[in-house]
Protein backbone atom coordinates (compact mmCIF):
# COMPACT_ATOMS: atom_id res chain seq x y z
CA UNK A 1 0.00 0.00 0.00
CA UNK A 2 0.98 3.62 0.06
CA UNK A 3 2.22 3.54 3.62
CA UNK A 4 5.70 4.79 2.84
CA UNK A 5 4.64 7.48 0.47
CA UNK A 6 4.99 10.56 2.56
CA UNK A 7 4.41 13.36 0.14
CA UNK A 8 4.81 16.24 2.51
CA UNK A 9 7.83 18.47 1.91
CA UNK A 10 8.91 18.12 5.49
CA UNK A 11 9.55 14.78 7.17
CA UNK A 12 9.33 16.39 10.63
CA UNK A 13 5.77 17.44 10.12
CA UNK A 14 3.65 14.95 12.05
CA UNK A 15 0.27 15.99 10.75
CA UNK A 16 1.14 16.46 7.13
CA UNK A 17 -1.14 17.48 4.40
CA UNK A 18 -0.91 14.73 1.80
CA UNK A 19 -3.65 16.10 -0.35
CA UNK A 20 -3.06 16.84 -4.02
CA UNK A 21 -6.19 18.93 -4.13
CA UNK A 22 -5.96 22.39 -2.68
CA UNK A 23 -8.87 23.32 -0.45
CA UNK A 24 -9.94 26.89 -0.92
CA UNK A 25 -12.41 29.26 0.71
CA UNK A 26 -15.51 27.56 2.01
CA UNK A 27 -14.05 24.08 1.45
CA UNK A 28 -11.73 24.84 4.37
CA UNK A 29 -14.75 25.21 6.66
CA UNK A 30 -15.03 21.43 6.94
CA UNK A 31 -11.88 21.42 9.09
CA UNK A 32 -13.43 24.02 11.38
CA UNK A 33 -16.53 21.82 11.64
CA UNK A 34 -14.64 18.61 12.44
CA UNK A 35 -12.62 20.58 14.99
CA UNK A 36 -15.82 21.93 16.52
CA UNK A 37 -17.27 18.45 17.05
CA UNK A 38 -13.94 17.39 18.51
CA UNK A 39 -13.95 20.40 20.91
CA UNK A 40 -17.52 19.64 22.03
CA UNK A 41 -16.53 16.03 22.81
CA UNK A 42 -13.51 17.25 24.80
CA UNK A 43 -15.69 19.38 27.04
CA UNK A 44 -18.69 17.04 27.29
CA UNK A 45 -16.55 14.04 28.25
CA UNK A 46 -14.62 16.29 30.66
CA UNK A 47 -11.34 15.47 28.91
CA UNK A 48 -10.35 19.12 29.34
CA UNK A 49 -10.60 18.72 33.11
CA UNK A 50 -7.36 18.93 35.11
CA UNK A 51 -9.08 16.65 37.62
CA UNK A 52 -9.71 13.90 35.04
CA UNK A 53 -6.00 13.91 34.09
CA UNK A 54 -5.05 13.65 37.76
CA UNK A 55 -7.45 10.70 38.14
CA UNK A 56 -5.80 9.04 35.16
CA UNK A 57 -2.22 9.44 36.41
CA UNK A 58 -3.27 8.31 39.90
CA UNK A 59 -5.03 5.25 38.39
CA UNK A 60 -8.17 6.21 40.28
CA UNK A 61 -10.63 6.29 37.40
CA UNK A 62 -11.06 4.31 34.21
CA UNK A 63 -12.60 7.25 32.32
CA UNK A 64 -9.53 8.63 30.48
CA UNK A 65 -8.14 5.16 29.77
CA UNK A 66 -11.53 4.26 28.31
CA UNK A 67 -11.57 7.41 26.16
CA UNK A 68 -8.05 6.97 24.77
CA UNK A 69 -8.37 3.18 24.43
CA UNK A 70 -11.68 3.24 22.58
CA UNK A 71 -10.44 6.10 20.37
CA UNK A 72 -7.46 3.94 19.36
CA UNK A 73 -9.63 0.85 18.73
CA UNK A 74 -11.98 2.95 16.58
CA UNK A 75 -9.02 4.42 14.70
CA UNK A 76 -7.49 0.98 14.07
CA UNK A 77 -10.77 -0.37 12.67
CA UNK A 78 -11.27 2.73 10.51
CA UNK A 79 -7.76 2.64 9.04
CA UNK A 80 -8.00 -1.11 8.37
CA UNK A 81 -11.30 -0.53 6.54
CA UNK A 82 -9.78 2.30 4.50
CA UNK A 83 -6.84 0.09 3.52
CA UNK A 84 -8.69 -3.15 2.86
CA UNK A 85 -11.59 -1.59 0.98
CA UNK A 86 -9.21 0.84 -0.73
CA UNK A 87 -11.41 3.76 0.24
CA UNK A 88 -10.44 7.00 -1.51
CA UNK A 89 -10.66 10.56 -0.27
CA UNK A 90 -13.63 12.65 -1.44
CA UNK A 91 -11.32 14.06 -4.12
CA UNK A 92 -10.68 10.52 -5.37
CA UNK A 93 -7.12 10.39 -4.09
CA UNK A 94 -5.47 7.36 -2.56
CA UNK A 95 -5.34 7.88 1.20
CA UNK A 96 -1.84 8.32 2.57
CA UNK A 97 -0.88 7.38 6.12
CA UNK A 98 2.41 9.06 7.00
CA UNK A 99 5.16 6.87 8.47
CA UNK A 100 6.46 7.68 11.95
CA UNK A 101 10.20 7.09 12.11
CA UNK A 102 11.67 6.11 15.46
CA UNK A 103 13.80 8.83 17.05
CA UNK A 104 15.24 9.34 20.53
CA UNK A 105 12.87 12.30 20.78
CA UNK A 106 9.93 9.97 21.22
CA UNK A 107 11.54 8.77 24.46
CA UNK A 108 13.08 11.99 25.82
CA UNK A 109 10.58 14.45 24.36
CA UNK A 110 7.73 12.10 25.17
CA UNK A 111 8.76 11.99 28.83
CA UNK A 112 9.10 15.79 28.92
CA UNK A 113 5.64 16.21 27.42
CA UNK A 114 4.28 13.79 30.04
CA UNK A 115 5.69 15.96 32.83
CA UNK A 116 3.92 18.98 31.35
CA UNK A 117 0.69 17.05 30.72
CA UNK A 118 0.39 16.19 34.42
CA UNK A 119 1.03 19.82 35.47
CA UNK A 120 -1.27 21.58 33.02
CA UNK A 121 -3.85 18.79 32.85
CA UNK A 122 -3.90 19.31 29.11
CA UNK A 123 -2.34 18.04 25.95
CA UNK A 124 -2.37 20.51 23.05
CA UNK A 125 -5.97 19.73 21.93
CA UNK A 126 -7.60 20.39 25.28
CA UNK A 127 -5.61 23.65 25.61
CA UNK A 128 -7.63 25.11 22.74
CA UNK A 129 -10.91 23.71 24.09
CA UNK A 130 -10.17 25.10 27.57
CA UNK A 131 -9.61 28.58 26.13
CA UNK A 132 -12.86 28.34 24.16
CA UNK A 133 -14.67 27.18 27.30
CA UNK A 134 -13.83 30.46 29.00
CA UNK A 135 -10.72 29.48 30.95
CA UNK A 136 -8.96 32.43 29.38
CA UNK A 137 -5.92 32.17 31.65
CA UNK A 138 -4.94 29.09 29.59
CA UNK A 139 -3.89 31.63 26.94
CA UNK A 140 -0.78 32.05 29.11
CA UNK A 141 -0.20 28.27 28.97
CA UNK A 142 -0.65 28.37 25.18
CA UNK A 143 1.94 31.14 24.82
CA UNK A 144 4.31 29.11 27.01
CA UNK A 145 3.67 26.03 24.84
CA UNK A 146 4.46 28.11 21.73
CA UNK A 147 7.66 29.25 23.45
CA UNK A 148 8.56 25.62 24.16
CA UNK A 149 7.93 24.66 20.53
CA UNK A 150 10.01 27.62 19.33
CA UNK A 151 12.92 26.83 21.66
CA UNK A 152 12.93 23.23 20.41
CA UNK A 153 12.98 24.46 16.81
CA UNK A 154 15.72 27.01 17.49
CA UNK A 155 18.08 24.56 19.22
CA UNK A 156 16.95 21.39 17.43
CA UNK A 157 20.44 20.34 16.36
CA UNK A 158 21.72 20.29 19.95
CA UNK A 159 19.19 17.72 21.14
CA UNK A 160 19.95 14.01 20.62
CA UNK A 161 17.67 12.46 18.03
Amino acid sequence: MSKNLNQTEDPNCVAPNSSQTKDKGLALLKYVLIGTVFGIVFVKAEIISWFRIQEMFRLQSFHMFGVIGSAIVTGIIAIQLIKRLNIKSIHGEEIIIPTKEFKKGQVIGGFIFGLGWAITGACPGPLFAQIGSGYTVILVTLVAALAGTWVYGKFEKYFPN
Partner: protein
Amino acid sequence: MHQFIGWISQPWPWYVAGPMIGLTVPALLIVGNKAFGISSSLRHICAACIPAGIPFFTYNWKKEIWNLLFVLGTAIGGFIAINFLANPDTIVISEATQADLTALGITNFSDLMPSEIFNWDNVFHGKGLVFFVIGGFLVGFGTRYAGGCTSGHAIMGISSLQWPSLVATIFFMLGGFFMTHVLLAPLMKLVGF
Protein backbone atom coordinates in the same frame (compact mmCIF):
# COMPACT_ATOMS: atom_id res chain seq x y z
CA MET B 1 -35.44 19.22 20.91
CA HIS B 2 -35.53 20.35 24.52
CA GLN B 3 -35.28 16.74 25.66
CA PHE B 4 -32.42 16.13 23.26
CA ILE B 5 -30.45 19.10 24.67
CA GLY B 6 -31.16 17.83 28.17
CA TRP B 7 -29.87 14.42 27.21
CA ILE B 8 -26.62 15.57 25.58
CA SER B 9 -26.01 18.02 28.44
CA GLN B 10 -25.16 15.11 30.73
CA PRO B 11 -21.44 14.28 30.89
CA TRP B 12 -20.66 11.91 28.02
CA PRO B 13 -19.33 8.47 28.96
CA TRP B 14 -15.98 7.24 27.65
CA TYR B 15 -17.58 4.79 25.22
CA VAL B 16 -19.27 7.67 23.42
CA ALA B 17 -16.38 10.15 23.57
CA GLY B 18 -13.58 7.73 22.67
CA PRO B 19 -15.12 6.42 19.43
CA MET B 20 -16.07 9.98 18.40
CA ILE B 21 -12.45 11.07 18.86
CA GLY B 22 -11.27 7.96 17.01
CA LEU B 23 -13.57 8.84 14.09
CA THR B 24 -11.66 12.11 13.67
CA VAL B 25 -8.89 9.99 12.10
CA PRO B 26 -10.90 8.65 9.11
CA ALA B 27 -12.89 11.90 8.88
CA LEU B 28 -9.75 13.95 8.21
CA LEU B 29 -8.29 11.31 5.89
CA ILE B 30 -11.43 11.05 3.83
CA VAL B 31 -12.34 14.74 3.54
CA GLY B 32 -8.86 15.89 2.67
CA ASN B 33 -6.12 13.25 3.06
CA LYS B 34 -5.02 14.91 6.30
CA ALA B 35 -3.25 13.05 9.12
CA PHE B 36 -4.70 13.81 12.55
CA GLY B 37 -2.33 15.69 14.87
CA ILE B 38 -2.73 18.77 17.01
CA SER B 39 0.67 19.75 18.37
CA SER B 40 1.68 20.61 14.79
CA SER B 41 -0.58 23.64 15.09
CA LEU B 42 1.87 25.09 17.63
CA ARG B 43 4.68 24.71 15.11
CA HIS B 44 2.60 26.29 12.34
CA ILE B 45 1.84 29.28 14.58
CA CYS B 46 5.59 29.67 15.25
CA ALA B 47 6.29 29.37 11.52
CA ALA B 48 3.63 31.97 10.72
CA CYS B 49 4.48 34.48 13.46
CA ILE B 50 8.11 34.17 14.54
CA PRO B 51 10.07 31.99 12.07
CA ALA B 52 13.24 34.08 12.72
CA GLY B 53 15.03 32.38 9.86
CA ILE B 54 15.15 29.08 11.78
CA PRO B 55 15.13 26.14 9.34
CA PHE B 56 12.65 24.23 11.56
CA PHE B 57 10.11 27.01 11.02
CA THR B 58 10.89 27.82 7.41
CA TYR B 59 8.35 25.88 5.39
CA ASN B 60 5.11 26.59 3.65
CA TRP B 61 2.84 26.75 6.72
CA LYS B 62 -0.01 28.05 4.57
CA LYS B 63 -0.32 24.55 3.12
CA GLU B 64 -1.13 23.37 6.66
CA ILE B 65 -3.71 26.05 7.36
CA TRP B 66 -6.32 23.29 7.72
CA ASN B 67 -4.59 22.34 11.00
CA LEU B 68 -4.99 25.87 12.37
CA LEU B 69 -8.66 25.89 11.31
CA PHE B 70 -9.11 22.55 13.09
CA VAL B 71 -7.81 23.95 16.41
CA LEU B 72 -9.91 27.09 15.89
CA GLY B 73 -12.86 24.71 15.61
CA THR B 74 -11.75 22.96 18.81
CA ALA B 75 -11.92 26.30 20.65
CA ILE B 76 -15.35 27.04 19.10
CA GLY B 77 -16.50 23.57 20.19
CA GLY B 78 -15.39 24.37 23.74
CA PHE B 79 -17.41 27.59 23.61
CA ILE B 80 -20.54 25.84 22.31
CA ALA B 81 -20.30 22.99 24.82
CA ILE B 82 -19.88 25.23 27.86
CA ASN B 83 -22.49 27.81 26.84
CA PHE B 84 -25.24 25.70 25.26
CA LEU B 85 -24.71 22.11 26.37
CA ALA B 86 -23.32 22.63 29.86
CA ASN B 87 -23.68 19.87 32.39
CA PRO B 88 -26.37 20.92 34.91
CA ASP B 89 -24.60 19.21 37.83
CA THR B 90 -21.12 19.65 39.26
CA ILE B 91 -18.33 17.36 38.07
CA VAL B 92 -18.00 14.04 39.90
CA ILE B 93 -14.36 13.37 40.75
CA SER B 94 -13.25 10.07 42.25
CA GLU B 95 -13.11 10.22 46.04
CA ALA B 96 -9.59 8.84 46.14
CA THR B 97 -8.40 11.64 43.83
CA GLN B 98 -10.23 14.24 45.91
CA ALA B 99 -8.52 12.93 49.04
CA ASP B 100 -5.08 12.98 47.38
CA LEU B 101 -5.58 16.50 46.04
CA THR B 102 -6.99 17.78 49.32
CA ALA B 103 -3.71 16.69 50.91
CA LEU B 104 -1.92 18.85 48.30
CA GLY B 105 -4.04 21.91 49.18
CA ILE B 106 -6.83 21.76 46.58
CA THR B 107 -10.22 22.43 48.19
CA ASN B 108 -12.60 23.38 45.39
CA PHE B 109 -13.85 20.38 43.37
CA SER B 110 -16.94 21.98 41.85
CA ASP B 111 -15.60 22.97 38.43
CA LEU B 112 -13.81 21.26 35.52
CA MET B 113 -10.62 23.04 36.56
CA PRO B 114 -9.47 23.76 40.13
CA SER B 115 -10.18 27.47 40.61
CA GLU B 116 -7.30 27.77 43.10
CA ILE B 117 -4.85 27.11 40.28
CA PHE B 118 -6.45 28.32 37.08
CA ASN B 119 -7.21 31.99 37.64
CA TRP B 120 -5.64 35.22 36.36
CA ASP B 121 -4.54 36.29 39.87
CA ASN B 122 -1.96 33.50 39.80
CA VAL B 123 -0.25 34.62 36.59
CA PHE B 124 2.49 36.71 38.25
CA HIS B 125 2.82 34.31 41.15
CA GLY B 126 4.83 31.13 41.69
CA LYS B 127 1.62 29.16 41.05
CA GLY B 128 1.30 30.66 37.59
CA LEU B 129 4.99 30.10 36.89
CA VAL B 130 4.62 26.38 37.60
CA PHE B 131 1.15 25.62 36.23
CA PHE B 132 1.07 27.92 33.19
CA VAL B 133 4.59 28.88 32.20
CA ILE B 134 6.66 25.80 33.07
CA GLY B 135 3.81 23.35 32.40
CA GLY B 136 2.98 24.94 29.05
CA PHE B 137 6.63 25.12 28.06
CA LEU B 138 7.13 21.41 28.78
CA VAL B 139 4.04 20.55 26.72
CA GLY B 140 5.20 22.62 23.72
CA PHE B 141 8.84 21.55 23.91
CA GLY B 142 8.13 17.89 24.66
CA THR B 143 5.51 17.37 21.96
CA ARG B 144 7.72 18.90 19.30
CA TYR B 145 10.77 16.93 20.40
CA ALA B 146 8.63 13.76 20.43
CA GLY B 147 7.19 14.66 17.02
CA GLY B 148 3.60 14.60 18.20
CA CYS B 149 1.19 14.53 21.11
CA THR B 150 -1.67 12.37 22.28
CA SER B 151 -3.50 12.89 19.00
CA GLY B 152 -0.60 12.49 16.54
CA HIS B 153 1.10 9.59 18.32
CA ALA B 154 -1.34 7.89 20.73
CA ILE B 155 -4.35 8.06 18.42
CA MET B 156 -3.18 8.55 14.80
CA GLY B 157 0.13 6.70 15.22
CA ILE B 158 -1.08 3.67 17.17
CA SER B 159 -4.24 3.47 15.03
CA SER B 160 -1.99 3.02 12.01
CA LEU B 161 -0.02 0.36 13.95
CA GLN B 162 3.28 2.24 14.10
CA TRP B 163 5.47 1.13 16.98
CA PRO B 164 7.41 4.42 17.38
CA SER B 165 4.10 6.03 18.34
CA LEU B 166 3.50 3.32 20.94
CA VAL B 167 6.94 4.06 22.41
CA ALA B 168 6.11 7.79 22.48
CA THR B 169 2.78 7.10 24.20
CA ILE B 170 4.44 4.92 26.85
CA PHE B 171 6.86 7.75 27.63
CA PHE B 172 4.03 10.33 27.72
CA MET B 173 2.44 8.18 30.43
CA LEU B 174 5.72 7.61 32.30
CA GLY B 175 6.38 11.37 32.37
CA GLY B 176 2.87 11.96 33.67
CA PHE B 177 3.19 9.32 36.40
CA PHE B 178 6.57 10.72 37.46
CA MET B 179 5.25 14.28 37.71
CA THR B 180 2.06 13.23 39.52
CA HIS B 181 3.63 10.88 42.06
CA VAL B 182 7.10 12.37 42.57
CA LEU B 183 7.40 16.03 41.58
CA LEU B 184 3.92 17.53 41.93
CA ALA B 185 3.65 17.55 45.73
CA PRO B 186 7.01 19.29 46.39
CA LEU B 187 6.38 21.72 43.50
CA MET B 188 2.96 22.67 44.88
CA LYS B 189 4.39 23.11 48.36
CA LEU B 190 7.13 25.32 46.94
CA VAL B 191 4.65 27.74 45.35
CA GLY B 192 2.46 28.07 48.43
CA PHE B 193 -0.27 25.42 48.35
